């Protein structure tokens, strides 16, 4: 493939960032908005072209026609920084099923958000938000970084863009920088993910030290032609053997490869908000809602999943690391779902739902084994990533529309909006159905595949995850009813009745709703698998339906329907049931409502321990002990010179005395010696 289009895909958002960042403040608001949106639109089209070429052109670069295996193609790869001859950071463009998939996801959502923001970032009177141009610049920066991340050809390139998405997320969360809560949220997000990145970095260092390379293709694939690679378990086994034959293959009872993989996964945990590094994501909702939709629901937060998927053949080599992923994912999924049931702020409900859904993907990757249906879990995880991106972005954008109309994040200020905002109502409902896993919406298929894969691995986790799926349906419909039903909407005196938003905001909702309805039918098994091999002989519109494991599907459908019914009973009309529930289980409710006190724990660790017990004492030590020693030396010198200077009294007669005595002694000594 010619590298022109890929280069433009990366360069265009970067150019937009530079142009809007440097000259944006001189532009008129609509110009900046249109420019940013158009730039992203072009990028989206180019990304579609690239992805379609990859999946459907049948080009031998991209697919091995004989074995029906999709290949990895390095479109270009430029040396950026050479540490040693073999350890070289390159900036390149790796095209394979998952990167092509992510290209589509990112550009689509990003374009929707760009479009949507034209409406969102001004108030009801059409007055533009301050920093509107800056907002678009940051969005472009984020898009650039995220695209760079997914097409990375080596792990260090990924780390570079990993950091860049972190920074752009920081800038966007803190977009309303005069608001202290936004500032502290952005700070928290950056520092928590930074801490995770430390693990990622160490993982990279360990891995690269033992293998002498950063390239993904060297870890997981074999070269079949120049620049074209094929995923192979053999290469990963070679890596494992290389580490086992090295001087120190074990460290503290686990193999070095496990350490490296777990450390790298730690980076993923940070970005993907897995417990216990999840605390930044709910706070990140302080950012503008389109940002939450783009970064904190659809794209950046799945980077961790993407990272694990990217190194999946290596993870396969170490059972322990996959088990860790499953455990972390399953715990996080349940935790986040429970917390989501009790939140008041609608964005926070969605944030916890995001955490829970990403945990689904993690579990799915963790349970994937090549022996079971060609690594069904891997495919399911990626599938869920795709569908989730669509319906979660939809939900967030709906939430944005609601917040924009009401001016508050709390559902207590909403209630009964279904008549006032019909489009938002319908699209939100579609989103809820999709995430709850109701056939035929997108979430049903992907979640069902995940549950099938989990069942194939272990029954315990299957039951666990089904429970979480039920909870998901419950809290989503709780939210839905509390926003759109519960009781009649009361318009505060002096306010307009809330209404649907301008087309720039409703159009993305409709598009995403349509996609959420249809995305489930995409024959993913033929597009994205762990080793590129196609799952099905032939595909049609109902391939996914035919491939369903109907036992699992019917169970999960039943669970979802029961959960939705429960939510309907409890929340459709104003009734005392919810508060009764709350009073029946006060401790559970309190813990969930306070998110199991994780934030308090972190506050304690950072403020009391890091600041109070480390930084302050160190600063004191520095001022008083280290510097005190220096000042003390100076003081001693000064005091002793004061003491000595009395000898130099200026009294000439004393001097003569001393001189005389000296001379006499000298004379006496001479005399004695001569005698």
């Amino acid at each position: 493939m010619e590298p022109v289009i890929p280069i433009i895909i990366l360069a265009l958002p970067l150019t937009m960032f530079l142009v809007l960042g440097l000259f944006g403040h001189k532009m008129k608001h609509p110009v900046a908005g249109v420019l940013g949106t158009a730039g992203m639109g072009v990028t989206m089209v180019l990304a579609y072209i690239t992805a379609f070429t990859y999946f459907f052109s049948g080009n031998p670069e991209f697919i091995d026609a004989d074995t029906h295996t999709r290949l990895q193609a390095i479109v270009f790869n430029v040396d950026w920084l050479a540490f040693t001859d073999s350890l070289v950071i390159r900036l390149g463009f790796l095209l394979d099923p998952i990167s092509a998939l992510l290209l589509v996801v990112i550009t689509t959502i990003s374009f929707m958000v760009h479009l949507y923001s034209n409406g969102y970032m001004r108030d009801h009177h059409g007055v533009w938000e301050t920093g509107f141009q800056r907002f678009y610049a940051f969005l472009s920066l984020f898009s650039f970084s995220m695209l760079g991340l997914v097409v990375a050809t080596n792990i260090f390139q990924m780390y570079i863009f990993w950091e860049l998405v972190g920074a752009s997320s920081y800038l966007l969360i803190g977009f309303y920088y005069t608001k202290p809560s936004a500032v502290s949220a952005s700070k928290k997000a950056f520092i928590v993910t930074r801490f995770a990145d430390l693990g990622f970095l160490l993982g990279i260092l360990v891995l690269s030290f033992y293998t002498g390379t950063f390239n993904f293709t060297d870890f997981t694939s074999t070269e079949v032609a120049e620049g074209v690679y094929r995923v192979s378990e053999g290469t990963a086994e070679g890596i494992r053997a290389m580490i086992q034959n090295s001087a120190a293959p074990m460290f503290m009872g686990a193999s070095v490869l496990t350490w490296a993989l777990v450390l790298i996964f730690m980076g993923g945990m940070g970005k993907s908000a897995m417990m216990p590094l999840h605390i930044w994501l709910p706070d990140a909702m302080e950012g503008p809602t389109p940002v939450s939709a783009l970064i904190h629901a659809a794209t950046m937060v799945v980077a961790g999943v993407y990272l694990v998927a990217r190194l999946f053949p290596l993870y396969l080599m170490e059972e322990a690391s996959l088990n860790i992923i499953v455990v972390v994912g399953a715990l996080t999924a349940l935790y986040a779902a429970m917390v989501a049931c009790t939140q008041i702020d609608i964005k926070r409900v969605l944030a916890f739902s995001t955490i829970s859904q990403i945990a689904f993907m993690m579990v799915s990757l963790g349970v994937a084994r090549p022996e079971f249906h060609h690594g069904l879990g891997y495919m399911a995880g990626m599938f869920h990533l795709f569908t989730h991106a669509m319906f979660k972005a939809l939900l967030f954008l709906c939430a944005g529309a609601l917040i924009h109309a009401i001016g508050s994040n709390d559902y207590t200020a909403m209630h009964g909006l279904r008549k006032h905002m019909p489009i938002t109502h319908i699209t939100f409902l579609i989103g809820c159905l999709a995430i709850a896993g109701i056939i035929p919406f997108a979430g049903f298929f992907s979640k069902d595949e995940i549950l099938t894969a989990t069942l194939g691995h272990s029954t315990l986790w299957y039951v666990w995850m089904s429970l979480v799926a039920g909870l998901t349906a419950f809290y989503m419909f709780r939210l839905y009813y509390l926003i759109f039903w519960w009781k009649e909407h009361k318009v505060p005196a002096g306010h307009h009745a809330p209404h649907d938003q301008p087309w720039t905001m409703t159009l993305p909702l409709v598009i995403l709703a349509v996609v959420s309805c249809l995305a489930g039918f995409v024959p993913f098994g033929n597009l994205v698998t762990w080793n590129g091999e196609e799952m099905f002989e032939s595909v049609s519109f109902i391939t996914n339906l035919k491939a369903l494991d109907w036992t699992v599907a019917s169970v999960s459908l039943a669970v979802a329907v029961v959960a939705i019914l429960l939510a309907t009973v409890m929340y459709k009309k104003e009734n005392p049931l919810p508060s009764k529930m709350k009073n029946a289980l006060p401790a559970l409710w309190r813990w969930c409502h306070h998110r199991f006190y994780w934030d308090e724990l972190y506050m304690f660790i950072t403020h009391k321990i890091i600041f109070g017990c480390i930084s302050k004492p160190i600063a004191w030590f520095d001022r008083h002990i280290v510097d005190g020693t220096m000042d003390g030396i100076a003081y001693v010198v000064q005091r002793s010179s004061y003491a000595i200077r009395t000898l130099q009294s200026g009294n000439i007669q004393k001097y003569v005395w001393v001189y005389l005595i000296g001379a006499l002694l000298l004379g006496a000594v001479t005399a004695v010696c001569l005698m």
Partner: protein
Amino acid sequence: MFSNILIYFVIIPLLMLAGFALCRNDKQIRAVAVTGSIALMALSAWLLVDYLALRKAGETAEMLYTGSWEWFGPLNICLAVGVDGVSIAMLILSSIIVFAGSFASWKIDNARHFFMWLLLLSTGVFGFFITVDLFTMFMFYEVALIPMYLLIGQWGTGRKEYSAMKLTLMLMGGSAFLMLSLIGIYYHSAPEGGQLTWNILEISQNASISKDWQYFLFPMCFVGFGVLGAMFPFHTWSPDGHACAPTAVSMLHAGVLMKLGGYGCFRVAMYLMPEAANDLAWIFLILTGVSVVYGAFSACVQTDLKYINAYSSVSHCGMVLFAILMINTTALTGAIMQMLSHGLMTALFFALIGMIYGRTHTRDIRLMGGLMKIMPFLGVGYVIAGMASLGLPGLSGFVAEMTIFVGSFEHADMFHRTFTVIACSSIVITAVYILRVVGKLLFGPVQDEHHLQLTDATWWERLSVITLIVSVAAIGCFPNFFESLIKFTFSPEIFRAIGL
């Protein structure tokens, strides 16, 4: 003598000094300062181009543009010059910072004397980087140190006399150690009966310092330079000194002068006494490893902008020495990159702090807030400097730190690993204190209503800041160019003695 391009790095500042003496008003002084610093920039740029061309043409000598002119025969002291990639990198850094510093002190009081001392300081700095004669090097080193006392004592703020005294005395204490070790090196510079020399290249060629003497001289030399490189526990001059120094002096001091320490550690201590360096590195690795984290933690709770930055310098300069002590090509390259990167970004920080302080008349972050709204240019500059400091890709800090980490990781034993991990963990702590100060200073609501009247940067301040930002970004975006410039220097000879 005057046919050697390197000499002009000393001559131009001296000419500028003469020029200042002749100037009649501030306008002319600024004109001289700008002309001179542009000339220095042009010279270093030209040197870079020419150097690369020579290397491309197949020059393999360790140092290029060598020349030697004796000025004190009985002790064989020469003005010996010569540069390699490392020195050129340092020369470029110095000229950029002198340029930016001139603009940053556009409206200083008593400009004539200020600039004269500043340029005397720069003469010392440039002289230090071009010479390969230990004694001349030491002389230039002292020339660079002394003006600092007057510059801080005269144009400083706060407890300036105390700080100036402390800074000068501590650095002088360091140079006492240094002088001792340099003389020691001189008397072992040649095999029995040979002509003694101060010339670094000849000394390294002779390799005649016995191991016992190396054990004695290396720690002294390393500590001597380490004091200037803010090595724990000899760093306390840095917070006080920087806090009281005027803007351009802080820039030059943190940006360039502290690099003299790192450069000296590399060029003299490691280069001439590699065996001792290899054996004794662990002692200093502990100290520098500690200072990386220690400086970062200290910075977390400071409330004075300059103290924060000074402690961050302790952390970052600790990283330089830490990497030097790793003794392998990658880590050494990283060390030099870190010197470049830290020089530029800390100069940027100090420039911005000076500009903010010039407006708000306070450096206490508790008394400021929401400045981004009031002075967006300075705010954005500060954020960029902060991002460079915490190692955002695309800016210089990332490149340098990653090179250091990868290089340090090449040592597989437990000791090195432990300290590498400790050093790595500083990236988190750095993020903590940088974001803390950015959040308090620039974001949030405006703390003091008087600040609402303040203005954004003037054109000369903008120029100064933009120069530095562009340099930081250039290193961050095209690291391979700089790394290859530096890397060639670490020819196998350095590692010959220690069998690496």
